[in-house]
């Protein structure tokens, strides 16, 4: 019967992995145990026989046979030959494009919001008070409301007074003709109507004065002119117009401009 511990040492000795103390130990044991010596001899023979067996040569064409059986293009690097759709899609599908997508989305949203603000904000701000003629010229004429049309046909004074409106832009289109000198006085509440501009299109000699809610104009012959006002959107405004010749009233009218 062989001590299991010594079987381990015998194998270690065969492997050449035994220390001096263990070698001495197992040598002593082998010298005293015939069975152990027999096992040791058998193991040494088996090991020696295996170690002596020469390697087997593979056939000469082995390498060629292997290389012929693989696909050489499997890992071939694709050569870029100009712009391809796949290059475009692969760019868009690359995982590191998220910041670019986020930026682009931000631009699109910003543009949409800006466009919406433009529509909403300028819907009520289509009138440019610094360029009332430009505003009137550019808008659709159907949007201009004629509030009042007053023809004048007196012996001393002829003409027409039109009151027109484009939202809160109010203006008088006045055409007057007389052989005499005449005075025009237009009074209005400055809280409700703010005078913007006087635009003569035909004026011989005109003396024009604007003073604290009163416009006075002295003219003769044929004149055409416009008077522009900006109405307070919450106010119902009134204008009183008076025409006189030699201090004698020839025409008076009150114009009402609704909210």
């Amino acid at each position, binding site marked *: 019967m062989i001590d299991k511990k010594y079987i381990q040492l015998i194998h270690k000795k065969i492997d050449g992995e035994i220390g001096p103390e263990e070698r001495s130990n197992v040598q002593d044991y082998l010298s005293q145990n015939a069975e152990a010596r027999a096992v040791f001899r*058998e*193991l*040494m023979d088996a090991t020696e026989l295996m170690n002596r067996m020469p390697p*087997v040569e593979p056939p000469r064409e082995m390498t060629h046979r292997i290389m012929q059986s693989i696909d050489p293009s499997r*890992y071939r690097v694709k050569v870029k030959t100009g712009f391809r759709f796949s290059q475009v899609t692969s760019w868009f599908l690359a995982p590191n494009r998220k910041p670019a997508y986020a930026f682009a989305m931000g631009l699109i949203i910003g543009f949409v919001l800006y466009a919406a603000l433009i529509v909403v904000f300028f819907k009520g701000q289509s009138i440019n008070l610094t360029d009332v003629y430009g505003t009137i010229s550019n808008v659709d004429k159907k949007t201009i409301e004629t509030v009042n049309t007053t023809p004048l046909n007196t012996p001393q004074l002829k003409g027409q007074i039109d009151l027109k409106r484009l939202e809160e832009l109010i203006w008088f289109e006045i055409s007057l003709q007389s052989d005499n000198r005449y005075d025009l006085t237009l009074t209005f509440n400055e809280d409700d109507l703010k005078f913007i501009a006087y635009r003569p299109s035909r004026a011989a000699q005109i003396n024009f004065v604007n003073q604290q809610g009163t416009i006075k104009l002295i003219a003769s012959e044929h004149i055409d002119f416009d008077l522009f006002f900006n109405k307070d959107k919450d106010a119902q405004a009134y204008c009183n117009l008076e025409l006189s010749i030699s201090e004698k009233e020839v025409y008076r009218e009150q114009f009402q401009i609704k909210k």
Partner: protein
Amino acid sequence: MFENDDARLVQKCLKGRIQAFETLVLRHQKTIFNLVYRMCNDYDDAQDITQSVFIKVYENLKSYKSRYKFYSWIYRIAINDTINHLMKKKHSTGLKETFKAINSDPSETYNQREISTHVQRALMMLNSDYRTLLVLKHFQDCSYQEMSQILGIAEKTVKSRLYMARQQLAKILHKQGIKTND
């Protein structure tokens, strides 16, 4: 040095340089062929299995992790493929029954070629696990640590199983009267 070189060759293969794979084949084909041959004891089968091992290695290069030794990886593939092949072929244990001592006289000697044949046959009488251990240790000259890495088992387990394998082989050879002339 070869270990780092193998990893570099794999990287070159993955970049489409087929010559790098041919270098790997030239470097390892004889070792793999011998491993497979010793496991299956059939020259033709060893050729087929060796070829399939390298095809599998080539097709799975992307899965190779450079932190492991290349030969450990390829040995593992070769051992598994050989065992699978043997299971399919069902090498009979009839060898054990039909095998007879060429010469029952223990004092007679054999020429080396005959001895190799008998030792190989004796190896085939062991189970595949024991055979694998003996082939790796005595034919591939692997250390216990390398065998542990290849087979994925603890070094202590490798040693104890190898000792058992040696003892079994030794008994078979002794019964057949096969021994060294020394």
